[in-house]
């Protein structure tokens, strides 16, 4: 059997991010769909993001959602029983996509929180 380097931690992190996302997504939907008049304009968003607490919340939500999403994709791929080389390539590719998306997300947050 292939030596396990990361073991149970990605699985556990998937549960941890899930638990955070249960709360986080409910809040995200309440503030952006259930208690706000459409359309959601730039002005409405900066009003919320003028407090650092909301910026931190959004960054945490961004990180958790990207990890959970891409690790979810990874767990679908493990069902395909890929070869060693394909596993390695996809592992790196998903990691790079994840890190890049996280920083793109932060970059998008900057104009709102200035």
């Amino acid at each position, binding site marked *: 059997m292939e030596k396990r380097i990361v073991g149970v931690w990605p699985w556990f992190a998937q*549960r941890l991010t*899930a*638990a955070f*996302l*249960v709360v986080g*997504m*409910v809040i995200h*939907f309440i503030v952006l*769909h*259930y208690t706000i008049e*459409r*359309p*959601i*304009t*730039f*002005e409405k968003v900066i009003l919320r993001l003028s407090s650092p607490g909301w910026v931190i919340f959004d960054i945490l939500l961004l990180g958790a*959602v*990207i990890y959970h*999403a*891409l690790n*979810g*994709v990874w767990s*679908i791929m493990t069902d*395909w029983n890929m070869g060693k080389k394909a596993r390695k390539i996809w592992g790196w590719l998903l990691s790079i996509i994840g890190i890049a*998306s996280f920083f*793109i*997300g932060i*970059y*998008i947050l900057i*104009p*709102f929180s200035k």
Partner: protein
Amino acid sequence: MKKNIISVLLRELKLNFNPGMISFFFHRITGIGIVIYIFLHLWTLSAVVKGRDAFNHSIVKWDNTLGHFFEYLIMIAVLYHLLNGIRIIAADLFKLTLFHKKMFWAFGIIFIVFAVYSIKVFF
């Protein structure tokens, strides 16, 4: 033998038609949908880099019945994935595996209640 992901899922669903398999099937489908949406979400929001008018324009573009319909679809996908996720955590971490079928039906009722209530909010 490689087969496409949806046909494999459908075959599994047909072979094991029970709450565990049904919930897994929808968890996977909604999961894939939400992953695709996240990147579209980032793409739409990225208009803010070009300024507030560009952002407002990109948001207003979806402020119509079709846009609201897609929003609603994403909302119920997230709602399902969220409720079923609670069920998975309960079974995995809190030794509630014996109750997973009961939880499936209980969360099913919660899902329907919120999905119906949200029609009023999203349309």
